[in-house]
């Protein structure tokens, strides 16, 4: 292939990829830009891409009048709790599946794997009634409990721990370490990369989840950010700029977390998909 041909190919390839970047990024840029526009400027023809005058009034309204701080904290508490608890539960189970032999292991594992085909929506109704009986409706626990363990998480951790050499565990055992010590002091530190990955997955899933919190949390003081945003959509349909500010507040934390930890996140997806 000659140099000239390669050159043309490069140009085409780059321009296609760049259009892709514009398509994926522009909506976010516009979201931020519109959130800084004065009232009414986003509803204009032809559309305005940049604010004529930057204003923070919508953020002010959201934080002062609509008490967004509270929702932000709700989101944080719920997402962190789900992440923390599920990390412990899943890693313990993943460890057991990877490094122990016990009666019914294969059967149990197969059962869990095939259960992944069951859509979560099947459980919604009875789960609601059940948590209601237990008094968890309109509490943080109502949202946290269904996320405490996940089959996918167990599977992901098991895949990783299985590749940890047995000799590491063996030598610890010879030193007289008991099982929980091995789990806590040897397995967890070695499995740190996958734990971080899973933590990110879980956190993002919990942060972005909207249907279950919408059902379980009845009082608005308990709402999470996505639920509030969906609510605002009903109440402030016309206030485009304010809705955009709300979207920025909802999206920004998760994007920051993602950008900071993207290395782990992307690797985790590959781990979950490629058969070792």
């Amino acid at each position, binding site marked *: 292939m000659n140099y000239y041909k*390669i050159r043309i190919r*490069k140009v085409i*390839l780059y321009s296609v*990829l760049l259009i*892709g*970047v514009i*398509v*994926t*990024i522009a*909506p*976010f840029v516009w*979201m931020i830009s519109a959130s800084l526009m004065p009232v009414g400027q*986003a*509803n204009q023809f*032809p*559309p305005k891409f940049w604010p004529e005058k930057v204003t923070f009034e919508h953020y002010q309204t959201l934080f002062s009048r609509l008490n967004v701080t509270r929702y932000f904290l709700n989101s944080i508490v719920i997402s962190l709790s789900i992440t923390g608890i599920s990390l412990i*539960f*899943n890693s*313990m*189970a993943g*460890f*057991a599946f990877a*490094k122990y*032999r*016990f*009666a019914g*292991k294969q059967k149990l594992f197969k059962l869990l794997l095939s259960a992944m*085909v*069951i*859509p979560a*929506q*099947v*459980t*919604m*109704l*009875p789960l609601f*009634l059940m948590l209601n009986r237990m008094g968890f409706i309109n509490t943080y626990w109502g949202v946290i*409990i*269904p996320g405490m363990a996940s*089959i996918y998480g167990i*599977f992901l951790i098991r895949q990783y721990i299985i590749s940890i050499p047995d000799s590491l565990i063996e030598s610890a055992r010879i030193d007289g370490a008991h*099982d929980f010590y091995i789990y806590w002091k040897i397995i967890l530190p070695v499995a740190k990369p996958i734990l971080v990955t899973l933590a990110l997955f879980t956190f993002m899933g919990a942060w*972005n989840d*909207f*249907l279950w919190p919408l059902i379980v949390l009845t009082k608005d003081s308990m709402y999470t*950010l*996505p*639920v509030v945003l969906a609510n605002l*959509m009903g109440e402030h349909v016309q206030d485009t700029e304010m809705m*955009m500010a709300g979207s*920025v507040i*909802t999206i920004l934390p*998760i994007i920051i977390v*993602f*950008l900071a930890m*993207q290395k782990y996140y*992307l690797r985790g*997806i590959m781990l979950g*998909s*490629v058969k070792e």
Partner: protein
Amino acid sequence: MRFKIFTDMPKGNVAYLFLAPAMTAIFVFFFLPVMAALLMSFTDFDIYSLGDVSRARFVGFANYINIFQKPLFWQAIRNTAYFVVVGVPLSVVVSLLAAMGIQSKLVRFKPLFRLSYFLPVVATLVAVAVIWRFIYHPRFGILNYILGWFGIQEIDWLGNPKWAMPALIIMAVWKGFGYNMIIFIAGLQNIPESLYEAADLDGANARQTFRHITLPMLTQTTGFITLTTLIGYCQFFAEPYIMTDGGPLNSTLSIVLLMYREGFKYWRMGYSAALAFILFGIILIVTLIQMRFQRNYELL
């Protein structure tokens, strides 16, 4: 003897301790509700029963029969099928193209492209819906504005029954293709470089290389992606729930949305549970068919 260090232990009782918390949570808060839902699907549990459980009765398969007789159910099936049949191939193709573009030897700044294509995946769906509702705005929306450059008339994307579903498909593909792209990139990285070098020596052109090396080597990856996307798209819910509420004229009513409506809006829980199991059946069938097509594919 892989587990020999533990053979001197009382047959792995410790393992059960490690399993207990996660398994309890999964059994109590997942399997039990699934069972309960199955049971419920054979009852007429409804708004009357909400205040007083004695007002529910066993009705056998009446809910299932009832569902199959409802035109709205078939409409939901058609809509979901539309979404799946158009959306899944589109999503798979777009993510494969993106992955190949980024992995091309000619391209630098790979991480940057990867990152930007992945951003929509991370973003909160509700917020994305807020943005896209405005992109689709018939008068002030950017999409119609850009289409206007090409002389295309204003389209009422979310208000017209003909366009509402394509609009949701575009948004869903935009939101999700980055995820599959990453998996494809992993798959591409696993293809030995030597294969391409050999093809190059044989004088194969780009199309031939793609057909005879890239595609066959990605069979497993493509199978995995198609399956997961398929399952995910069958459960199409949040997009229509937030963007159109199933409208206009039920043109975006999906199975899960119908289920949600029946269950939580009208509180016909028996009926809704039956719908959930029909959906489960559909997903199971789709999975089996897909796995048959992809013979050498193993579940994860």
